[in-house]
């Protein structure tokens, strides 16, 4: 069976079990050696070679995804939950963002592979929808409601004050990755405009003079945590 091809087959007389024990680099060398000798791969060797290719692919996947097993398992779970449902991509992205606070590239890559959706499509979607983030969020979030009612009642002032207090613009995170400042389209608390949401807690009728106090409180939380 394994006699046909001249030259290079000696190296390939190993049984599959032995092949598996060989380290990956050696296998790859062997494959390259074979290719070099034959220019193409003799049919008799294809079975062993397909195993080698598998090893190669495995390595590739790792290069592509820089994955650890946890990420893969997580993504597989999300995909398993949604695979048979129509319109699942955005729902899965929500699940991922809920888990990580943003959508890490390696997770997006793994998702692309698991779900069979091109990475380009995933990025098209992530960057289109403002809800999805590509950067890790800050430890604390300060969000100014920019609904109409809040706007009329001075949310711009609040935002200006926050910008100068934190030294960042909306959509940005402080250099120490502690505080993320953002605006949100109407949180529906128009009755208490202008409102600011700090770490999920909504504050109503906020005055710009109160902002330094709030920022200090958040920073104190950070230090307490540290």
């Amino acid at each position: 069976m394994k006699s046909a091809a001249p030259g290079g087959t000696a190296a390939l007389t190993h049984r599959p079990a032995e092949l598996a024990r060989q380290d990956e680099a050696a296998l790859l060398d062997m494959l390259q050696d074979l290719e070099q000798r034959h220019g193409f791969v003799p049919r008799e060797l294809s079975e062993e070679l397909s195993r080698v290719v598998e090893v190669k692919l495995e390595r590739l996947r790792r290069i592509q995804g820089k994955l650890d097993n946890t990420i893969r398992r997580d993504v597989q779970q999300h995909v398993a939950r949604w695979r048979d449902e129509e319109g699942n991509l955005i729902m899965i992205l929500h699940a991922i963002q809920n888990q990580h606070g943003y959508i890490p590239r390696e997770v997006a890559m793994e998702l692309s592979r698991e779900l069979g959706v091109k990475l380009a499509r995933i990025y098209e979607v992530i960057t289109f929808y403002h809800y999805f983030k590509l950067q890790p969020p800050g430890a604390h979030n300060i969000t100014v409601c920019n609904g109409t009612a809040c706007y009329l009642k001075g949310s711009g002032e609040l935002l200006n004050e926050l910008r100068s207090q934190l030294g960042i613009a909306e959509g940005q995170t402080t250099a120490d990755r502690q505080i993320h400042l953002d605006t949100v389209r109407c949180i529906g608390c128009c009755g208490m405009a202008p409102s600011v949401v700090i770490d999920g807690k909504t504050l109503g009728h906020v005055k710009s003079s109160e902002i330094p106090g709030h920022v200090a409180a958040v920073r104190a939380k950070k230090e307490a945590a540290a």
Partner: protein
Amino acid sequence: MKALTRQDLEAFARQPRAEPPEWIRVQLDTGGIAAGAELVHTALAAARDERHLAFSLLRAGSVGYSFADPVIEVQSAGMPRVHYGRVTPEVAAQVLDTHVVDHRLLDDHVIATRQRSTALALPVTHILVRDTGPDATSKTEFFQFSFTEELKRRGLAERVQVVRALDIGIYDEGAVVQLLPSAVTYANVLAPDVARIVAESIEGGRVVDDLLWKTPDKQVRIVLRHCGDVDPDSLEDYLQHADGYQALRRALFEFTPEQVIAEMKLAALRGRGGAGFPTWMKWQLTRAQPAPQRYVICNGDEGDPGAFMDRSVLESDPHAVLEGMMIAAYAMGSTKGYFYIRAEYPKAVERIDRAIQQAREAGLLGANILGSDFSFAAKVRLGAGAFVCGEETALIASIEGRRGSPSPRPPYPSVRGLWGMPTAINNVETLACVPAILTKGGAWFSSFGTETSKGTKVFAVTGKVRNAQLVEVPMGTTLREIIYEVCGGVLDGKDIKAVQTGGPSGGVIPVQHLNTPVSYETLQQLGSIMGSGGMLVMDKTDSMVEVAKFYLKFCVDESCGKCAPCRIGGYQLLQILDRISRGRGNADDVPLIRRICVAMQKASLCGLGQTAPNPVLSTLRYFNEEYQAFIEGGPSYARKMSRVASGAAAANAPAVAPARPLVAPLPTGNGGAI
């Protein structure tokens, strides 16, 4: 819950509404929760257990009194049922002490009912007083004192309590008095009237006709019929207390799909998402399209800044929307439906999700619902922060997992929609109307409203208005009625300058047009649109150039970027407006603005781009002089204006507004929340 049968539902329909005798209902919608309603709920539960009180603690959505969040409703034996507003945990404790235990109403938190009566059917137990003119605080106290004294004088003080109301639902009509439990209401009450009221009404049981407030409430609650009343987390509550799924039962067993559509045609309901396309026609078109699958989508991607009608309905009465969707699906022969809801509305998502789950468990979703031939499945899909996904084709793209860029129409979704199948997309409010129409009939529904716009419309009135709240009025109600009679007029008694309707796609309506009856057509004639129902009140200090800039910036941020006129036009327009508002504009700018606006209106692919210039054009139409002032006044004028604006904002910010000084401190900063 075991699977329901048709007979179960029929039994529910016959069964009288059974309620526990004593209860407190906490309104737990997003607005309420943000204001601390969960804490109030927790405090009430703890206090009840600690003090072994017997009342049931119930949950509900919002009745719409956003200005008074958190709101609770209390039913106690021998007491009139009342709403309390601005309830902190401390206030809640007082409510327990005063109302539940002592059977007295608590001052400064009662919101008077709008269901006013003209007959004194029952003996008076409580007198609500509230002065609605200037210097309200002292006058309210004065009237409370006068009534109390008068009652004492006649030995009635034991029987009748005088209570200062937080809000009495009538504005700028002097002192207003409401007699509970009948809710006979007197307005423009003067000091000498006190004795007369006590003598005639309290003692004599007769109505004082010359003081009687006969104007009925402007609001008609169809969409909001159960909001604040029914527990959004309980299918059982919906079934037993809100005629839940009776409309569906009727549709399935008493109507053919064609008859449902005919009833909708009779109702003449038009899409409440803004465009006003007749709902029956949308269903008819979808139904007429031969296809292996048809979809119905509930558009809950409410994104207009300042609009929260859909959120409130989804959070307060989710089963009604689901029921409406199911009836729609039955009518058009669809078996699958999606709720597309903004991810920014976690509470609405949670409640709809739960409603679907409960309905599935009860056999109201699934195969052969209630033993009929109708099968239906509903799912939730989340938006992810893109306003443009409110546009039908963009919404479909989003559900399909693509960028929410609109596609050219035709083909319309009713022909080729979700996954290429005929799809009807209905707004939340539209679907919420459907069960009511099926129950009470299309003719009943169309008895409200104007010639071309039937039924009622929910508005979220915000901005410089005294009582920011949800309002549901019949079409044809004037803007003035909505703002002044329902919402109490402009904040701080200032002069109104304009009203903005339709959000970023709408326009401003200046004060001279406030008597315009609201309908799809009239608003359009004024250069605005109905839109989804946001209504922003602006006072004299608000700069129209800034307002135009605000809305335009919103559209520029939310433009999908697909087509050039909207993507670049919006951006350039914003640059020019910004230039003008900094006093750097010149005479050529206004014609250029108009030219870009026309290009956007005519050449943009979807509604967002086509309507984005509306706020700019309508402010130019009515407030051109403000633009000219910026252009002619230059940077120094612009600086002056910006000082005025920030001053105004600061003046509006105080926690305790002068017009309502007697209320508990509002949750400012951390204090109110924890």
